[in-house]
């Protein structure tokens, strides 16, 4: 029972982290086509903004989301004693 009580806050924090980590890449990638349509003529760094978002924006968002996820999850694991890396 004590083990289950210990696991609950761990899983709650993990779920919250999952949702916050997925939000940015999911929103950017699923909204990319419609964003590109709306921002059709605009350019940034000499490139159409839709294309720039689709190539560099998506890559940056994915790397940021996953790096943040790995770092914060490691912290959650350590806080709850669920980290077995030396």
């Amino acid at each position, binding site marked *: 029972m004590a083990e*289950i009580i210990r*696991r609950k806050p*761990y*899983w709650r924090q*993990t*779920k919250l982290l*999952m949702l916050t*980590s*997925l939000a940015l*890449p*999911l929103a950017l*990638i*699923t909204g*990319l*086509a*419609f964003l*590109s*349509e709306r921002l*059709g003529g605009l*350019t940034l*760094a*000499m*490139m*159409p903004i*839709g*294309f*720039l978002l*689709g*190539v*560099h924006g*998506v*890559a*940056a968002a*994915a*790397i940021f*989301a*996953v*790096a943040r*996820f*790995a*770092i914060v*999850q*490691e*912290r959650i*694991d350590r806080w709850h*004693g*669920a*980290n*077995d*890396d*030396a």
Partner: protein
Amino acid sequence: MAISSLTASPTIRSSQGAYFAVLASCFASLVLLALVFDQLGASSNQMMLAMVAFPLAACVLIGVISFSSSSHVWLTGGRVAPPALGAASALATCLGSTGFVVLPGAFFFLGFDALPFTCGILLGLVLHTILIAPYARKDGSATLAGFIGQRFESRTLRLVAAGALTLPCLLLLIGEFKLAAFLLGHAMQQPGPVIVAVLAAIAAFAVALGGMRAVMWSGAAAAIIALMVLAILPSLSGLLTINIPVPQIAYGLVKTEIARLETMAGMDTHRAASIVLTLPSSAPQALVKPFFQPFVANDPWSFTLLTLTIAMGVASMPALFAQAGASASVGSSRRMSVWLIAMAGAVTVTLPAVAFLTRLALLHALPIAIPVAAPGWLAELAKLGLADFDTEAATVPLSAVHFTRDSTNLLLPLALGLPRPLVDTVLASAAAVALAAIAAEAMALAAMWVQDVAMVFAAPGSAGTLRVLAGRLLAIAAVCVGAALSLRTRADPLTLFTWAMALSGSSAFVLLVLSVWWKRINQHGATAGLLAGSLAALAQIVISLNGAVPQLFGVSGALASILAAPLAAAVAIATSLLTPPPCPAQIELLRDIRMGSGETVRDREARLAQLHKLDAR
């Protein structure tokens, strides 16, 4: 956690890093030697052969030195993969030659409209990292079907999952063989079956001997070679075309120029109708679409749906799942995913730059109307069957010059007049990644057939020798089946890739996510969801094959998972809620999988089973 800790793992073996550094140095030395011999007038055919033989020889060597007779090591690689090398291997597995050979061609012809492929792959890797990989590693099953079957304690479900996931793995295997046979066969003037036979023999040899360890090491070697080529060629080309060695961030500088050249060449800017999805075919075709113009080949809806289809498929690729379980710990699997996405991000940023520079070089090199005296490289490509234009006409409009999608990588160094050995590096990297992907898919199939079909009724960890022997034979069988089907199938490798993504996304993605994140799901819901998703996707694809029958809801077969995945989720949730909740043992197993620490569930089961056996004696 500091970023430096992303490299920290107690299980990193410094010698492994040294071996791969030696491999990279050998490849660089080979290219430099070939450049010297090229200047001395050596035969270009022999240099091409040496360049392509290098990754193949590396794979054979890896097969020999990774030999293992332990079933645990053969199936899981011993769970000692360092994060960076594991990530390199996973990159070669998930991109394969589809990523390194087809996608530059897709960007070359479609420009903006090819973005769903790279966005889908990146989103898929993000979903895999956050929703699946850490839990796959904690569970420790060698196969995706094994994870599903054991999570719900159902051998029937395990068998059904193995059956459903065999088809996407086979489609990917066939596509890799076809791509390698096309590019290497045309460039080296060898019959396709010869190339397929050579690759099949090497892949079967390496996988049969080393199993997952051979797959991981050969994948890492292939990714290193492919990344080296992908770093050097665009940098050189960027210097020659736009005077900047980092074209990945700088090609926008010549946006106006390419738009002017495209307008002069009369490229079409009409928008696509709604729910239209045009994948670039492998047949020779002309450049008809401006690079930056969006939604000519597909409309915004198809664009988004294709992105999601590929994302779900990549996230639940059986071969990628197996490699997540090969890392040293749950934390290590997360670090591996960070490396993987960083590498995949670098590749997905480079591919459009390569395609853009290729377009620019072509539009500069070829006038609007090509006279009979076409550039030598174009005539050479036409002779090899990689380009096509009317050599009899006095002048040929650019719109009548056709290029093949899967040879686009060769166009850039040829059009810029780079030395021949640099052109051959493209072939070497294509051979390396194709071989790595073939090995990974064959391993995924062999592990699935032995663990989830042949030995499904055996106790965990039992009959190790028999498992390895059966695994070796089934790996050879998987490679042979893939090779034979690739010679008989006429489908386009890109279509096979999208079908594979649609099938694995429909059958496994929803189930994997629900089985980790929703504890109310039970084996009845999982079985019903798996069957509904797989059959709906398969039906959609089969209907799309028959041109006479209208597509279901107007959606192409390549987007099958868009209908099938929500259907699978609805069926799994409804069936689970209508049937009794899962037993306490399943809930306890799920709680164990969700925790990041401790031994893998499957290793512990096998260890305890062995202890019980010893006690009984």
